[in-house]
């Protein structure tokens, strides 16, 4: 073992250069190596003396004043705002009624997670968005800002909890947990995969009960992906708000800059960027609120919102609303993909509208659609009992076992009848 006079830090510094961790600059020749006590001495002094934090601690009061925040506990700031009932966000008027789940679109509610045994009573919407110290996840990632938007009669209430001191996390979680204690339906953007698990981790680390187990959760990423996944190049919240709400952020601090902004405060007491983080979080929450009615409308009328009519129709179909699905597909019939046209034909078939149905199939059959050819073969065999036509369609199918079986059966039938 190396002599005791050499500190861990000194030894590490020497080893790290040799192990490829850092490209060491030209080093002193071997003869000059032995005693370079300055660094280790410095570390030792730091260790024994009273706590001489190298990092600069920021002034909490000054930060609170700058952000317009109130301390709720040492190290936890709260920014609370009441936003008027006639709040405009992009082209949308944000009425507090949006948070009334009873008025929300059935389609959206169908895409929400409502626990193992959901009761029938609607729960009020609670919009939630966090900012974190990193995107890597794991237990070393902090959710340092939790923003919550709820409706009260005639007004919106925005509350943002900011952790300003690491050892204050228990108080911070207590405050956030309090917001989540009543039955509600969370509304987030990608929160099922990111915000909620991250906060769950923080609650578990602090030895507190996890409030997320009980809460219903509408993650708006799901309906956005459903309706726009195939028509937009990406489904980020920024894309959704700009396309659906016509909301453009000015001077936004990008979400990716949030970790550095907060770590700058924690490590060096820098407060300049934290206001930008709060504003970014507030815009996220307002966009969430704005998206709820607009997405609801987009599921009723996809064509007006540039949504994928086929995907939306399939949602209604899956929920048993065949007439609505048919109406949406008919309205979009000129722009449907082959799969969409086949679905439309299928809906016609179920209604016995054979003429409409065959028109679609025949159109697709001329392009060689196997599904259409097969459907037409069946139609002519079983509905029209026109075995000759049926065989023509069957023979047009690409070689397969199914084609052989069908053709053989039809030929046999034809011989029998002829």
């Amino acid at each position, binding site marked *: 073992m*190396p002599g005791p006079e050499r500190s*861990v830090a000194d030894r590490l510094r020497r080893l790290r250069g*040799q*192990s490829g961790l850092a490209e060491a600059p030209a080093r002193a020749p*071997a003869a000059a190596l032995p005693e370079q006590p300055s660094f280790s001495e410095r570390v030792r002094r730091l260790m024994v003396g009273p706590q001489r934090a190298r990092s600069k601690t920021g002034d909490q009061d000054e930060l609170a004043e700058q952000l317009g925040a109130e301390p709720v506990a040492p190290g936890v700031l709260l920014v609370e705002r009441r936003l008027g009932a006639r709040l405009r966000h992009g082209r949308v008027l944000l009425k507090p009624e949006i948070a009334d789940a009873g008025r929300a679109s059935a389609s959206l509610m169908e895409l929400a997670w409502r626990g193992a045994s959901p009761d029938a009573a609607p729960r009020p919407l609670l919009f939630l968005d966090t900012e974190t110290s990193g995107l890597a996840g794991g*237990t*070393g990632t902090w959710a340092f800002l939790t923003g919550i938007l709820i409706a009260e009669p005639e007004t919106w209430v925005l509350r943002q909890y900011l952790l300003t001191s690491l*050892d204050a996390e228990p108080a911070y979680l207590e405050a956030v947990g309090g917001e989540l204690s009543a039955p509600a339906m969370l509304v987030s953007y990608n929160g099922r995969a990111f915000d909620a698990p991250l906060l769950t981790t923080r609650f578990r680390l602090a030895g507190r009960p996890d409030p997320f187990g009980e809460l219903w959760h509408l993650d708006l990423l799901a309906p956005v992906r459903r309706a726009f996944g195939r028509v937009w190049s990406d489904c980020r919240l920024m894309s959704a708000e700009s396309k659906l709400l016509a909301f453009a952020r000015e001077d936004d601090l990008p979400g990716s800059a949030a970790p550095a902004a907060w770590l700058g405060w924690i490590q060096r007491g820098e407060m300049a960027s934290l206001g930008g983080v709060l504003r970014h979080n507030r815009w996220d929450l307002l966009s969430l609120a704005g998206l709820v009615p607009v997405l609801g409308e987009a599921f009723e009328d996809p064509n007006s919102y540039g949504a994928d009519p086929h995907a939306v129709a399939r949602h209604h179909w899956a929920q048993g609303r065949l007439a609505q699905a048919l109406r949406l597909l008919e309205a979009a019939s000129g722009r449907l993909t082959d799969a969409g046209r086949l679905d439309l034909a299928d809906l016609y078939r179920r209604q016995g509208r054979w003429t409409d149905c065959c028109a679609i199939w025949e159109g697709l059959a001329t392009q060689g659609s196997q599904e259409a050819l097969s459907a037409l073969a069946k139609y002519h065999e079983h509905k029209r009992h026109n075995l000759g036509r049926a065989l023509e369609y069957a023979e047009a199918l690409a070689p397969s076992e199914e084609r052989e079986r069908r053709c053989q059966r039809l030929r046999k039938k034809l011989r029998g009848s002829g």
Partner: protein
Amino acid sequence: MTTSPASLNADSPQVLRLEARLAAKYRGRIAATRSTPARSAQWRDLPADLPPALAEALRNRGLERLYSHQREAWDLARVGRHLVVATPTASGKTLCYNLPVLESVLSGGRKALYLFPTKALAQDQVAELMELSRALSAAGGPGIKAFTFDGDTPGDARKAVRTRGDIVVSNPDMLHQAILPHHTKWAQFFEGLAYVVVDELHSYRGVFGSHVANVFRRLRRICRFYGVEPTFIFASATIANPAELAERLCGEPVEAILESGAPQGERHLLLWNPPVINPDLGIRASARSQTTRIARMAAKVGLKAIVFARSRLMVEVITKYLKDVFDHDPRRPARVLAYRGGYLPSERRRGEQAMRAGKVDLVVATSALELGVDIGSLDVAILNGYPGTVAATLQRLGRAGRRLRPSLGVLVATTDPLDQFLIRHPEMLLGASPEHARIHPDQLLILLEHVRCAAFELPFRDGDAFGGEDLGEMLSYLRDEGVLQHQGDRWYWVADSYPANAVSLRSVAEGNFVVIDTTDGAQTIIAEVDYSSAPGTIYAGAIYMVQSQPYQVERLDWTGRKAFVTRTRADYYTDAIDYTRLKILDRFEGAVLGRGVAANGEVHLVRRYPGYKKIRYYSHDNIGYGNIDLPDQELHTTSVWWQAEPSALEAALPDRQQAIEGFLGAAYALHHVAALRAMAELHDLGRAVGDGQGTWFAVVGGDGRGQMRGPGNDALDPAEQDRFEPTLFLYDNYPGGVGLSAPLFDAAGRLVSDARDLVAGCSCAAGCPACVGPVLPGDEERALTPRQAALAVLELLLCREG
């Protein structure tokens, strides 16, 4: 003793008749033999407190009783003692841990974590547990849920593994990178964790073992957070120190179960040296030719045999030769099967099933089969070359031997120094003293990386401990790096990063190089080379071998950590010329040894690779040189070194040039025998000859002769030096050392005597790659051959009785 042919008759077991035939026909090739008599089973009753459904399931599978070691394991585990079971291959180790684990699942609803060093072994284990689960269900008990959790587990299945698995079967890398940093997601699992099972303990040695010991420190820290203290159960192949290794890994006292109660048939072992075909050059027939011959003889008399080869290429070559004999008719099922890494899992599963069903007569395998994959039992094990450690040899030989039937093992030596040494020192192997597996969990760089990971997982508190170094100092270091913040009495993680991703358990530090095959315009990663061995192996121009396929390095991107290679058919390999300058920084301990001293301490090393030699295969002729343009490498590590008394050296070797060559040859031999003793790979150790002050060092120069060089690599004349104290170093080739030097110092006398025996016993004339390293043509005519010079040096350092 070999069974005498006279005592055999037509009723004797076929294995004994094969052995008798080999002995009669090839007496001169058999260097040594050993026989172990049969051993009967030591039975114990099933424990009375076994859950009834479990007892019933065992009985339904024909298990009415337990072997003594299985029962011992049960008794220890039930009272919460950590334990290690180190019994031979196929002695039923799995049941030693499965029984207490299943009991805790069935009776207490508890959980267990199983760790295997490879994914394939984990999958085998899950298959076995599923079988047990079905037997339990059939016996009226509840089933158990065992899942693998590895890099192949799909994202949507991970939640089910975390929340529903009774037994999660994974590997240390996943524990390190995926489970511990996300422990809150595993809260339910940790809260119920009763057992941690670590199989293949013997593979956790060196750098890997040192990392895993730290991963276990982190694991135990997380367990404490969830209020559990799981019992560790280790299973190991035969090594000298299973309990010590297990204790260092889990940080607590561990009980060892070393006596197997499983029955074993009579065992015979032959050490086989291929015949010399060129006495002048000391060249022997290839091991491969001998191996295939023995395998053919075994198969022809209806015995089932396994051949172990050291490389994947050799597996393919031997398989081809054997298939040419036995599988020339494609309409009949294959009798010969190759089994190695690199095959698809489904292909390997098919092979394992065919072996278990007894459909295969000859299996040719790499170490992929060394670890506990179940292939049923065989009659004969043939090792084409010494596997490198006694422990691995015993494990491979253990593949042969059906219960109560005799088995035969044959170790066929190659011309490598280690193999030839063993042939002349069969007691190293037959004396059954397997190596110590060493780890050094407090190696500073390794420790620091895991402190970093641990700090990410849970904040440290003032006064906490982690490993053997001062935790407060390390935490301060990390604070200065900006990843931790000290507030109140805690150290909080404050960086936007995920430290476990930057730490690989298989190396000391990051910065590994990837080797990229660019043949035919493709870009395929074919290997990784760790930072410290990169400059000596993947310089531009080097021939780099992967699975015995030679590749030529076209370009080395030093900063990008990439080597671009293309496939080649070169008939030579390359050997970097390595000018190593060592300076002793600190001497921990020393001892007089013969007419010299041995010591152990810290050294600073500067290594330069000015160029490389091209060496033709088989003849080992130098056929050319190339330049290497790389920065000097520095290493601060531990070393053991030897020095001869100057007057004695002068008396023995008056010519200093000869003394230098003698030291270089002695270093070559010592390096090889030391790797053997340290249970290390050859490249885990480095060797150097110099004066210890960094004023001169010795190398084999471009002309094939030893040369004395100054600090600037300038040639010096040994005769003109005032002081001449050649020092022979064997150093730990990892930054900071991974604990290899101290045991070498403890065995310093033994090493010299081993090296002397290696050189003295070699069948060459003047020196050869099997003893002191390649020599030049004509060396045998010199008055003092390189071999004699090396012997003279070793004799000086040799500790004689009296």
